[in-house]
């Protein structure tokens, strides 16, 4: 008491500052329900989640999407240290249809179409995650034009007349298939039903697990293409007999129906997606007559640019990740400017936001 009177504190310390809930340099803080923490699309992604961002667990990404995610988006995900996708209408529609489809009937075919940069591939990825989560076996072609244009090697086929093989690509695909479906194959315990004679010494007996078939293809590049054929026919048979659900996911299916090339791999069913490379983004134009006849009937699902809700959510996400450093970015006028400059297109928005 006396000491305090005699020697009062020379300086009054300021009270401790309360922690700000949101970063203070954004005048319009991102909305609270930016994210959804439901990582399991099968169960939890419904219309309520529209516009929210959900995180893909790294294990899932590694298992399923070594090849599927576009490179630029992958770079962004690495920068943000997380793989996030926005829940959007096309994916929700697709998942809804798949949930409700009658599996005893021949497979439904769905086609995602839309202009460049609208989100077809990412919607497809969302759906693939959903399918994997729901226990479907995936036959996933990450980017079909790779097989047509950027193949690594071409050899004439020894088994089938007039056919050409892409051995190395087949090996890569088999590896991809293995990573995606390994657990499922083991749990379902699917076995081969035919005898495959690769050479005099290498034979795959019937009733061997399918995993072994895949391994043969991976280890022996020479037989990898034939292995792929065998695998797909086996899976088809199993699916028809009701032992498993098979989903074929192809990104860029219209590449198979362009004038310079005929059909490369047999049947591509169920889910398909279109990559746009010409003036019109509509399916009839891109698929051409051959493809249309092959794929018809199908359910076309349009993928559009961002609407207002999604645009708001996308900018909120960038603000949340501190990607937009300009103080005006989150303001009303800033958002309108971003929307106008990117024409509400997701891909263009990414480009516009890069230097900001």
């Amino acid at each position, binding site marked *: 008491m006396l000491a305090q009177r005699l020697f009062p504190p020379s300086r009054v310390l300021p009270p401790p500052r309360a922690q700000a809930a949101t970063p203070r340099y954004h005048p319009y803080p991102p909305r609270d329900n930016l994210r959804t923490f439901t990582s399991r699309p099968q169960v939890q992604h419904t219309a309520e989640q529209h516009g929210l961002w959900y995180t893909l667990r790294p294990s899932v990404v590694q298992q399923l999407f070594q090849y599927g995610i576009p490179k630029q988006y992958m770079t962004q995900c690495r920068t943000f240290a997380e793989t996030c996708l926005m829940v959007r209408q096309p994916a929700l529609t697709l998942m809804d249809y798949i949930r409700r489809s009658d599996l005893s009937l021949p497979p439904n075919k769905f086609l995602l179409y839309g202009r460049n940069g609208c989100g077809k591939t990412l919607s497809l990825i969302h759906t693939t995650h959903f399918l994997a989560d729901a226990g479907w076996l995936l036959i996933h072609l990450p980017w079909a034009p790779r097989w047509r244009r950027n193949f690594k090697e071409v050899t004439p086929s020894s088994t089938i007349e007039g056919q050409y093989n892409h051995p190395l690509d087949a090996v890569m695909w088999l590896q991809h298939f293995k990573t995606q479906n390994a657990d499922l194959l083991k749990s379902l315990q699917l076995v081969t039903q035919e005898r495959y004679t690769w050479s005099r010494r290498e034979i795959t007996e019937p009733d061997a697990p399918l995993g072994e078939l895949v391994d043969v293809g991976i280890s022996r590049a020479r037989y990898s293409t034939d292995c792929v054929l065998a695998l797909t026919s086996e899976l088809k048979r199993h699916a028809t007999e009701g032992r498993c659900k098979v989903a074929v996911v192809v990104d860029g299916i219209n590449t198979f129906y362009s004038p310079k090339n005929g059909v490369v791999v047999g049947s591509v069913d169920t889910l398909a997606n279109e990559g746009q490379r010409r003036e019109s983004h509509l399916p009839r134009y891109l698929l051409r007559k051959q493809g249309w006849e092959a794929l018809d009937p199908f359910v076309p699902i349009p993928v559009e640019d961002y609407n207002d809700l999604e645009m708001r959510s996308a900018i909120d996400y960038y603000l949340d990740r501190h990607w937009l450093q300009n103080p005006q970015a989150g303001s009303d*006028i800033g958002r*309108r*400017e971003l*929307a*106008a*400059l990117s*024409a509400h*297109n997701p891909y*263009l928005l990414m*480009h*516009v936001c890069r230097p900001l």
Partner: protein
Amino acid sequence: MASVLGQFLRRSGTLVRTSCTTQARVASGLLHIQQHSSSSSSSSSMVEESTTPPESGRMSKSMLAYQQRAEAHDKFMVEQVAEYEIGRRHLANMMGEDPETFTQEDINAAIQYLLPSGLFEPSARPSMKHPSEVFIKKKAAEFDASGRPFHTFFYTGYPAFYEALHELGKTMISLEQFANKMARLKVESETSQAFNPGGTEWRSKGELSKMFLEELHNKHYVFFIQSMNRLLEHPYSSRAEDFIMRFRKVVLSRQSKEEIPKLLYTAEGVPYMTGSGKRKHAEATVTVYGRGSGKIEINEQDIRFFELIQDREQVVFPLQFTNLLGKVDLVANVTGAGLSSSAGAIRLATSLALQSFVDEHMREKMRLAGLLSKDFRIKERKKPGQKGARAKFTWKKR
């Protein structure tokens, strides 16, 4: 005395009859007493008065020569004015107008009609002006018969200029005295008593030179303007407004003259306005619709018509500046080669259309931002003997 006066009157009779202003000079032996008008007055004072000859009855040689020159000039001027008048009346008759009420503007219009010229420089085109505007004014006699100058500051070389400066100094002192008096009486006015320089600017060096009839140097001009600015800063400078306004000219704002078109309405009652703009060889016509949602359409395409973000920003800038982004729709049609110039043309057209949507204050801001000015830059011509407009051929030393 009377005889001397009579002699003077006879000699200067012709001068009196002319358009010169003369002053009676007291003919006395006291040659020091002088009265002269300040030559900074705007009237054309051709001749100060001719002095009384000294008692010897002879004028100095320079004065004689001057007188002769002045007489000749006056005669010349009279002839010129008479010719001008005749010409004016002839012109009026030619044009079928009344000669009595034929003004200088009518003359200009008539000359432009009768003698159309495609020359770029206005001063090179044919014109008919009053001789007083054509022929340079000269200064009046600056010294008397004995060689004594009239103006106190004659020996500075720039008497009118320095007289103006002295008057400035005197004004400054009087303002200071007034300010002190006000402070002593503790009178404080609420409104500012300082001179308001809005809407006026200082006369240029050439104009001042013409006013003083003296060729001023840059240093004179700079010093003069600096000193006048100090006068303007005085809190009571509005009391010296007359003096200040002698050296300032009124500047008209061009935009207040232009009329902004009113908004048009579609059948549904949506307000819209059209604007057109050009840049290099691109021409754009833009219609801005009010009550919109921010749609931008260029030649029936999205804003993706422009690949470069720079071009898109040019299109979006007027809307963003006026804060109408997302509130109006834009429909643009652009022709002509070049994406960058198309973007510039659309920007100008949009800004001109947006003028009708915004208020006066925003319009002024737009003008200051440069949105309403056409970009006149075009590709520079290639010159012979050079590789391009500016680039020269490779120079070889030997």
